[in-house]
């Protein structure tokens, strides 16, 4: 039934129209992000030309500074600088890294896959922990499982990910020698960083799932299902859970920002060579071109992820109709 309604939407071209409209809405959003990214970095104290020279270990003579300012286009009016930067950014040309000298787009491209692997693994672990925990807590409300899930949620929200990461390294790498302490290369290398990320996200999903499920389990249609003789599994998985997925998936989209932030910390702790570690490096060395490019990229990821979440709604809820006029 779900597939039929989705197919029906497709035949009507409503999905395509909706996607196109949402993509067009991306333009003003991204323009705003680009202005903010460009402007805020320019507000940071210090002369970017001097910073670039210092990073290069070059001499800080008045002549060298003037030359670097001209080279970086810093003498032009700010709108002209922005227009030039934006024009290049649209061609994925973010200039050269002040620190390494390599093209920024090349540096980022090399880091995307590790970050994607880590984020995906972290998310899977979060879901694998959150779903059983949330369901059990809802079904066995006020039991020890419920209390435990609340405790874990509090712990997960309170424990900083860098501390959790170091703790996991100590116990699983040093004491038990089950996993490598850092680095990338094998699935074992992914385990601890993904677990750190997942444990940070799981509490949010678990608590939301619990709250939503408790609410749904009191609905009339659930009572009807019980009355018709459905067993517990059928009631929860066939009737209740599907109605709970909508808010959970919505929160999932918003959690992407938390995920990306967590990735920054986790990658640094575990020496995972991803975009997060690149960002930290770029900020510490005032590598403006890299910082600008990463912020822009992460904004695009966040917006596209939420678009993908919106597109899931018709799949999850056949009552959602994508009207052309909306």
């Amino acid at each position, binding site marked *: 039934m779900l597939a039929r309604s989705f197919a029906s939407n497709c035949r009507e071209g409503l999905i395509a129209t909706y996607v196109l409209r949402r993509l067009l809405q991306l333009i003003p959003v991204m323009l705003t992000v680009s202005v903010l990214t460009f402007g805020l970095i320019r507000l940071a104290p210090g002369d970017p030309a001097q910073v670039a020279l210092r990073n290069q270990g070059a001499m800080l003579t008045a002549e060298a500074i003037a030359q670097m300012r001209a080279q970086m286009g810093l003498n032009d009016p700010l709108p002209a600088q922005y227009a030039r930067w934006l024009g290049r950014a649209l061609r994925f040309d973010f200039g050269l890294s002040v620190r390494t000298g390599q093209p920024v787009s090349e540096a980022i491209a090399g880091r995307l896959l590790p970050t994607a692997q880590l984020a995906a693994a972290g998310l899977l672990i979060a879901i694998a922990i959150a779903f059983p925990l949330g369901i059990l807590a809802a079904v066995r409300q006020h039991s020890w499982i419920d209390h435990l899930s609340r405790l874990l949620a509090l712990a997960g929200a309170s424990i900083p990910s860098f501390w959790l990461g170091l703790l996991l390294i100590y116990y699983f790498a040093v004491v038990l020698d089950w996993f490598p302490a850092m680095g990338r290369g094998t699935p074992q290398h992914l*385990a601890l960083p993904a677990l750190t990320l997942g444990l940070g996200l799981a509490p949010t999903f678990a608590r939301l799932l619990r709250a939503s499920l408790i609410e749904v389990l009191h609905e009339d249609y659930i009572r009807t299902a019980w009355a018709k003789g459905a067993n517990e599994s059928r009631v929860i998985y066939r009737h209740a859970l599907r109605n709970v997925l909508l808010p959970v998936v919505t929160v999932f989209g918003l959690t992407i920002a938390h995920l990306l932030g967590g990735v920054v910390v986790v990658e640094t702790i575990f*020496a995972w060579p991803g975009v997060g570690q*690149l960002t930290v490096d770029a900020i510490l060395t005032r590598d403006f071109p890299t910082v600008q490019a990463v912020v822009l990229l992460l904004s695009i990821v966040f917006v596209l992820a939420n678009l993908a979440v919106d597109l899931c709604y018709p799949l999850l809820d056949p009552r959602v109709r994508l009207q052309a006029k909306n």
Partner: protein
Amino acid sequence: MKRTRSFVLTLSIGLMAGLLLAACGGGAAPADTPVPAVPQELVIGAAQDQYRLEGDGANLGMYPLNTNIGETLFKLTPDYKVIPWLAESATYIGNDTWEIKLRQGVKFHNGDEFDAEAAKWSLEKQSRWQPLVPTDADNIKVVDKYTLTITTRFPFGRVAESLAHPSYAMYSPKSDPGKTPITSGPFMLESYKQNEELVVVRNPDYWGQPPKLDKITFRFIPDNSTRVLALQSGDVDLIITVPRENAGQVAAMKDVTLSQAEPAGYFALYFATKEQVAPYDLLTDVRLRQAINYALDKEAIANQVYEGYALSAKSITPPIVLPAIDSGIQGFSYDSAKAATLLDEAGWKLGADGIREKDGEKLMLTLVSGFPPANLIKPLPEVVKGQLEKAGIGVNLVEFNDIGAYYDYLDTGEVHMVIESGTWNTADISFIPYGLFCGCNTEGEAVLYKRFWINDDFEKQVLLSLSATDAAEAETAAVNAAKIWIDEYTSVAPIAYLSNLYGAVNKVKGLTPHPSGLNQDWSTVFIAP
């Protein structure tokens, strides 16, 4: 109800099983596996990857992490002697010109011969980037196959010392120093994954004493705590730059040894005495500067803040860089009574709250911390503040985690003193005085430190230590400059000499920790059975 519980139980067991299965590929070998001969392979945990990969500054494998794939014309030994290496000699021939005679019979890793053309190419590359030797491409000339000359822009006697810096590595002109460096060192580059690891292997055709290791893997681990844990877990065999706060932990680890190099770094206060406007001109009074020196308990700082892994400092120049410094200057030791006397003489009387005052004004000094970034040197500024407040000197601490913001703040002049550290990665005895404190230096970072300059006598001695072609004359001038710097003008308060710390598992032998981490020699290291 039962089904739900069993499903959840199954899922949980599955999750645990997954984790356990993933773990099964690592860990200890089974007990019945025969013990192999000891492979001569070392894994080193380094800090973050800081290589430049493009342009004239490209330095893969050389700087700041020196993997020994490249070599310089001169070499800085662990006792800070500069010895001929790829060059046999550097001779001053007049008119600010030095003649460099090269070693013959040295081959690059691709089999090409090292000659004057390759040396010129390498020197020109560096002259366009970070020239420690003040020259340019037009003034580096090939005389014959193994001889070249360098003419400096001004009298410069520290040529050999400067050419020992790893940024002056010698490359084949066919190199791409950021991707495929072709060099001559005891190790060759095997592979490089940016921000992950760099692997070098033994050069079987090395011209000098062959290295003992077959392979070294340098793993980049930016986080200090993770690097220490990696040593503890056995993921790495050795870590470089053990942070101060982890030194005790590493020293206490089972089967691990903490090694300490001779100190080549320092921490000090610099006093702003030039171009200062009230109320930031208080330290123009030399009695206050001397009082601050007497008020600092440097032994306590070395023992407590650095847990004994530092030495109290008499000067900015550690003895290993300039051995004559210790006997050449008097310095200041902790003497709270003398500090009090000087402050009294200067008219600063003890107030009711313990802070001295004069004409109704409190003695409040602004101490700025920003190089290195403030978060990296805590709690040293707070300890200094506490010690000075005990002497009745109020301290307003201003901290920056960003170097650009720090230098911007210094420009405002709202500073009495700064706390900074530095490392002598060179045997050039004029390096720090000329680099930071000499108004005579119009090309470098000295302009950023104009408020901390000294006087004409100091600059005269610094220029002499920089230009003298005779080493003894240069050393005498450097000691004379230090006398003015520390004893007479007292423009700084040296606090501690700092050492490089290395942590290694006990099977790693032959390591001689170099005071300058940039010049660490890995060729003597081996793995014991």
